[in-house]
């Protein structure tokens, strides 16, 4: 987390768009919603993190690292099969986070296979994937609905006087 949630909200309000969109904090958010239920100002922080992530994705201004890659991979897999295959996803993730990591996961994968919780060559997929594709393609036609109606990031901001 390079910026605390409070700081992210503060930067948004001050209009520091680039700083917000390039922060890794929203990507580190596990969306546990603790902040949302606790915020004394009832700010829906988790949902704002999602908005920031989506904006960063759309504007390609996020910092490239493992999490956004995983999320894109996830989307690709779901679009292809309608479901997620954990084993394949796991391998992709481990590979993205380095060869060392990939190797370190081998004993665990082996254990899980032995306990009938991981099938290496099985792919989890829907039967009627065409139906899902029809829905998703229909969603892609026409304008996208912005959520929430007013995006939280204001376009410009005064920048810091001194950058350390």
């Amino acid at each position, binding site marked *: 987390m390079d910026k*605390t949630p*409070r700081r992210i909200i503060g930067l948004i309000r001050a209009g520091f768009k680039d700083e917000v969109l390039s922060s890794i904090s929203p990507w580190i958010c596990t969306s546990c919603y603790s902040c949302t239920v*606790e*915020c*004394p*100002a*009832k700010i829906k922080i988790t949902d704002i993190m999602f908005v920031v992530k989506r904006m960063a994705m759309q504007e390609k201004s996020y910092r490239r690292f493992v999490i956004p890659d995983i999320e894109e991979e996830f989307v690709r897999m779901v679009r292809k099969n309608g479901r997620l295959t954990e084993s394949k996803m796991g391998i992709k993730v481990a590979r993205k986070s380095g060869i060392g990591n990939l190797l370190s996961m081998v004993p665990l994968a082996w254990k899980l296979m032995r306990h009938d919780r991981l099938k290496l060559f099985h792919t989890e997929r829907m039967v009627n994937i065409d139906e899902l594709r029809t829905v998703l393609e229909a969603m892609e036609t026409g304008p996208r609905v912005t959520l929430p109606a007013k995006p939280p990031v204001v376009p410009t901001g005064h920048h810091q006087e001194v950058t350390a």
Partner: protein
Amino acid sequence: MTGEKTRIGVYICDCGLNILGVVDVPSVVQYAATLDNVVAAKEYKYMCSDPGQDIIKKDIKELKLNRVVVASCTPTLHERTFRTTVSTAGLNPFLFHMVNIREAVSWVTADKKRATEKAKTLVKAGVMRVTLQEPLEPKTEPVAPGILVIGGGIAGIHASLALANAGTKVHLVEREPSIGGNMARFDKTFPTLDCSACILTPKMTTLRVHPNISLYSYSEVVGIEGYVGNFDVIVERKPRYVNEDLCIGCLKCIEACVYKDARFPNEFDLGLAKRKPIYIPFPQAVPTKVLIDPDDCLYLKLGKCKQTCADACEKDAIDFKQKPERVNLKVGSIIVATGFKTFDPKRKPQYGYGVLPNVYTALEAERLLSPTGPTEGIPRLQDGTMPKTVGIIHCIGSRDENTNVYCSKVCCMYSLKLAHLMKERTGAEVYNFYIDMRTTGKGYEEFYKKLLEEGVRFVRGRVAELTTAPLSKGEKGKLIVRVEDTLAGYVRRIPVDMVILSVGLEPQNDAQELRRMLNLSCGKDGFFIELHPKLAPVSTATDGIYIAGACQGPKDIPDTVAQAGAAASEALALVHRGVVEIDPYVAVTDEDLCSGCQICVGLCPYFAIEYDAEKKVSRVKDVMCKGCGVCVAACPSGAIDQKHFRDAFVLAEVAGVI
């Protein structure tokens, strides 16, 4: 007035830009001039100012006006002002009507064109109504000389003394066994660090012996009827099981109680210390009389006990047969000074109150720091040792959309005070976790500076949680405060031994019941609302009832005392005037039309309608009628009407607004 031609003057106020900024006042004036019977229509910057009022007075004399309409702010604010204006010019005050084009138009309408249209419509309706209005004489009634003060905390004590010293009879009702309120619980007061008891106790004892004050302790107001100048109050005195007149406060009975150890939680010490079934709440209590808790006393609970307390009493003051007693009082005005309760921190489970050890509310900490408290002024942990580090968490329950949105105002300062005292008494390292430091009183910021110099630590950040789950050796057995230090820019874990939760102030649990009994209003937060936040800060919408202290909103002792003085002077003004003017909006029966059905008799909540069996008609008793108009609307023969709110007047207004 019959036969005389109706001549109406209409005066439209700009109210600076408050009305003029939204409503096109000149066009409203132009329009008003075209209305029937209007002989003058004028605009002025501030109608309520002296020059504004002079315009009206001059016109009444020169243009021979016999009706006046002022279109400005809400009648609640200036109806009386303008009634006085017209009456000094020789016109009956009830031939005046006020049209609200500020609160009801300019301030609430976004569209300027439509606001102007609405203002015109309302002015037309006002003109149509005033045309029909008739002269009336205001009712005057004598004001009963006594004053009731509800609540014996510092606000009630100060108000009572001020009134009594001015020679007025005061009835002070306090529900606890002793007066003193929360101030009696404090060790020191901020920022001067005066000893709370040293400045409060003399006032309490003066009050006890004051010939003009009747103190009803351990008593509650259970009923209030009447109106300004004439309130009938019922006070219920709870049984102490000790005759207050006989008890001399020697406390021998307590010693003699069959319970050798004190084992029941002492309310005054918030349960941190114990007492016996027969007890005195605290040493300086006023009155210095013992009482028995019937839930704890063996004899009162089970009927079986050696009654050693009664044997020990030389005055035979103990009376197990005592029953609640009711006292009827007649007073002219009432001061409400019922105070506050503190926020229940169990509503914020992340701070572990009631679950984790050594987590106290600020009020409990006050007792731990008091020489008469459970630890005799040296705070200790539950294992008996002294804390080495103490964390004080600000804003518990305050400034939070999930609990109370308002700032409780006193917590920053009392937290600083507690920090100072904690450090002084235990030598502990003290942390204050705050969102903003709000030190806006005289000498308050200086006190904050002093604490910074004393080495008290300040962490800016709202504490996320308190936990006992350690992540390192140093955290074992400690309370760990997790907080984002927003100045340092890190999320920190700070292990401490004791935590004080700076709980906010809330209205008393039964504030709503009292509100109903007295016809007061409460805000969203539940505190009583004053008539006007700036110009009538201790008055209420109910004439003759005043508010003082924290029942009106969180405030510290200096503000509370100032307000108590203000409330006393308002109440005194009323009592000294001796008479009160009451709007004569009473109901009247037309005996020719009355069919004698008596529907109205049963409806009147004030028993103000009597039935004349001989003539077979109902008649309204003027003095008892409060002018609600319920009977008027209910009369099947249309025989009852209400002065100043006659059917015809209201219908004229209705016709006007459509």
